[in-house]
C-alpha cells in the first residue's frame, strides 16, 4: 500500500504544480488513401481518420477522470501529406488541408499534424505543391499544422528549401495578419525531424511507423521547479539527482496513460516523449526552473549550462520510467508559451542569440519567437539555416517556429491566447545575409569523424 506522503505528493503535483499529460496523439498512416482522383483521396482520408480516431477524445476524457490527471490535448498526426497527395492530379493541396481540418473537427481534436513534406535533399513535384499550399492552407483552416524537414545530418541542408521556407513563413504571416500571424504558430521548419513526435505543431506520422499508434507527451515544469526549489543550496550532483527522480515520476504518468489509452483504443502503444513542455501558466515554466537553479534571470551567463544539466537529468530519469522513449524528448523553450521566458525577454536578459545557443543543448529549437514584421525573407531563411546547422552538425533535432509579426516592432506583442500564449517581438540582427542565402543549392553533409 502507499504512504500518506506518497499519495499527497501525487495529488499536490496535479493540483498545485500543474502536472498533466500534455497530449495523447494518435498517429494514423494514410498510405492507403492515395488516389489519382483527389476528391476520392480526400474522402478516403476523412473516412480513415474519423473511423480510427472516433473514440480518441472520449477515451482520453475517461482516463483523465479515472486517474485524476488532466489530459490537456487529444491530437492526431498523419503521414506527410506530400507523400499522399502527390499521385492526385491537382495543382494545389488546399483540399487536403481542409479535409484534415474537417476530420479533426469531427472527432473533436484541437490540432492535426502532418501537412508536411520531407525535402532535406530535394523536392518532388508533390513536395513543391505542398510547400506552395502551406500559406493558404494555414490561413483557411483552424486545426491543421504544417511542418517541413529541410536538413538531416546525412543529407546536409537543402538551402533552396530553406530560402523558400523563409518566403512561405512571411506569406503565412501576411495571410493571417488579422490574427497577429497565427498561421506561423502552426508551421515548423525542422532539421533531423523525428517520425514519432506527439507534440504540435511538428507532429506527423513517419513512414517507418505502424498503421496506427498512440504516443504521449507529458508536461511537468512546475513539478521539476518545485523539486529544484527544495534543494536550494545543494551541489550539482544532488540537483541532477533530484531532477532525475522527479522526471521519473512525471514520465510514469505518461507511460501509464499512454498504455491505457492504446489498450482501450485497440492500437499499439508507441512512445512517451520526455520533453518538459511549459504552458503560459505562472509556475509551469522551464525558464523558472533555470532561475530556481540559481540564475537571476533566464538568459544570463550560465543559462546554457543549467539547461544542459536539466535536459540530461530529465532524459536519464525519464528513460528509466518508460519502456519506449521517442519524439523530441528534451526541454522545450518556446518563448510565447512560457511566462518565465517572456519575462526574461521583456527585461532584456534573453536574446535571440542566447536562445540559439540554448537550442544546442535541448529540444527543439527557436520556438514561438516573434520578430518584427518587416524582417527580410533572407534573414528568416538565414535564421533557419543557422538552426539547421546546429542540428545537422550535432546529430540532433532542431526546428524553427518563427512569427514575423505583421506591422509590429520590437517592444510590441503578438497575442495568440490559450496554449500558444503571447510573445514579445524580439530584435534580429540588422546586417544582411542576402548574398549568402541566395547562393542556392545544398550545404553538404558534415563529416562525422574528427569531431572537435
Amino acid at each position, binding site marked *: *500500500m*502507499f504512504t500518506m506522503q506518497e*499519495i499527497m505528493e501525487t*495529488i499536490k503535483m496535479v493540483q498545485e504544480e500543474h502536472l498533466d499529460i500534455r497530449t495523447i496523439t494518435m498517429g494514423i498512416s494514410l498510405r492507403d488513401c492515395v488516389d489519382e482522383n483527389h476528391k476520392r483521396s480526400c474522402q478516403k482520408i476523412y473516412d480513415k481518420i474519423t473511423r480510427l480516431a472516433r473514440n480518441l477524445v472520449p477515451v482520453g476524457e475517461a482516463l483523465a477522470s*479515472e486517474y*485524476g490527471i488532466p489530459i490537456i490535448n487529444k491530437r492526431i498526426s498523419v503521414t506527410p501529406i506530400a507523400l499522399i497527395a502527390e499521385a492526385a492530379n491537382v495543382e494545389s493541396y488546399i483540399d487536403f488541408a481542409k479535409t484534415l481540418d474537417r476530420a479533426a473537427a469531427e472527432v473533436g481534436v484541437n490540432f492535426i499534424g502532418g501537412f508536411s513534406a520531407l525535402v532535406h535533399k530535394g523536392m518532388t513535384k508533390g513536395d513543391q505543391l505542398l510547400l506552395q499550399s502551406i500559406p493558404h492552407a494555414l490561413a483557411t483552416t483552424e486545426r491543421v499544422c504544417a511542418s517541413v524537414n529541410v536538413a538531416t545530418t546525412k543529407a546536409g541542408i537543402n538551402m533552396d528549401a530553406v530560402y523558400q521556407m523563409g518566403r512561405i513563413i512571411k506569406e503565412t504571416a501576411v495571410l493571417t495578419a488579422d490574427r497577429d500571424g497565427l498561421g506561423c504558430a502552426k508551421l515548423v521548419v525542422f532539421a533531423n525531424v523525428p517520425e514519432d513526435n506527439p507534440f504540435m505543431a511538428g507532429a506527423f506520422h513517419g513512414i517507418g511507423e505502424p498503421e496506427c499508434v498512440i504516443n504521449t507527451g507529458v508536461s511537468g515544469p512546475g513539478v521539476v521547479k518545485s523539486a529544484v526549489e527544495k534543494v536550494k543550496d545543494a551541489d550539482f550532483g544532488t540537483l541532477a539527482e533530484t531532477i532525475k527522480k522527479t522526471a521519473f515520476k512525471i514520465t510514469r504518468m505518461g507511460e*501509464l496513460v499512454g498504455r491505457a489509452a492504446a*489498450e*482501450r483504443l485497440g492500437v499499439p502503444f508507441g512512445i512517451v516523449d520526455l520533453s518538459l513542455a511549459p504552458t503560459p501558466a505562472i509556475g509551469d515554466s522551464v525558464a523558472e526552473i533555470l532561475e530556481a537553479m540559481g540564475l537571476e534571470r533566464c538568459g544570463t551567463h550560465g543559462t546554457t549550462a543549467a539547461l544542459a544539466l536539466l535536459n540530461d537529468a530529465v532524459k536519464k530519469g525519464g528513460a528509466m520510467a518508460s519502456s519506449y522513449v521517442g519524439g523530441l524528448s528534451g526541454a522545450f523553450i518556446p518563448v510565447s508559451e512560457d511566462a518565465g521566458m517572456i519575462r526574461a525577454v521583456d527585461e532584456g536578459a534573453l536574446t535571440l542569440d542566447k536562445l540559439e545557443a540554448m537550442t544546442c543543448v535541448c529540444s527543439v529549437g527557436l520556438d514561438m519567437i516573434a520578430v518584427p514584421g518587416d524582417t527580410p525573407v533572407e534573414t528568416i531563411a538565414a535564421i533557419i539555416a543557422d538552426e539547421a546547422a546546429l542540428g545537422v552538425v550535432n546529430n540532433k533535432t532542431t526546428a524553427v517556429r518563427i512569427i514575423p509579426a505583421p506591422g509590429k516592432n520590437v517592444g510590441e506583442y503578438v497575442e495568440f491566447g490559450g496554449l500558444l500564449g503571447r510573445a514579445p517581438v524580439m530584435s534580429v540582427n540588422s546586417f544582411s545575409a542576402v548574398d549568402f542565402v541566395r547562393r542556392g543549392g545544398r550545404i553538404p553533409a558534415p563529416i562525422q569523424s574528427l569531431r572537435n
Partner: protein
Amino acid sequence: MKREIQGKRVIISVLGKDRVGIIAAVANILSENNINILDISQTIMQDLFTMILIADLEKSKIDLATLKAKLKEVGESLGIKIDAQHEDAFRYMHRI
C-alpha cells in the same frame, strides 16, 4: 497490463477544513454502494484536514465515474474537496 487496468482499487482523498460528519458522509456513500474500505488514515496538514481512504470497487454497484460524481456532490455540500482516483496513478509513480 490488462490486469492492472482492470484493477478495482481506488484512492479517495478528502481535503478541506475539518468539521463534524466528513468520514460518516464518505463512508455512507461507500456502504450504500457496496464498496469495501480497505484502509483509512487521516491527519491535519497545515490546518487542513486530510483523509486518505483506499476502497475496493470489486463488488460495487456503481462505476468509478459515478462514484466520483457522488463524492463531489457531498464534498460541495460540506465545503471540502473529495476525489477518487484509480490506484494505478499512484502505483506507477511510486513503485517500480
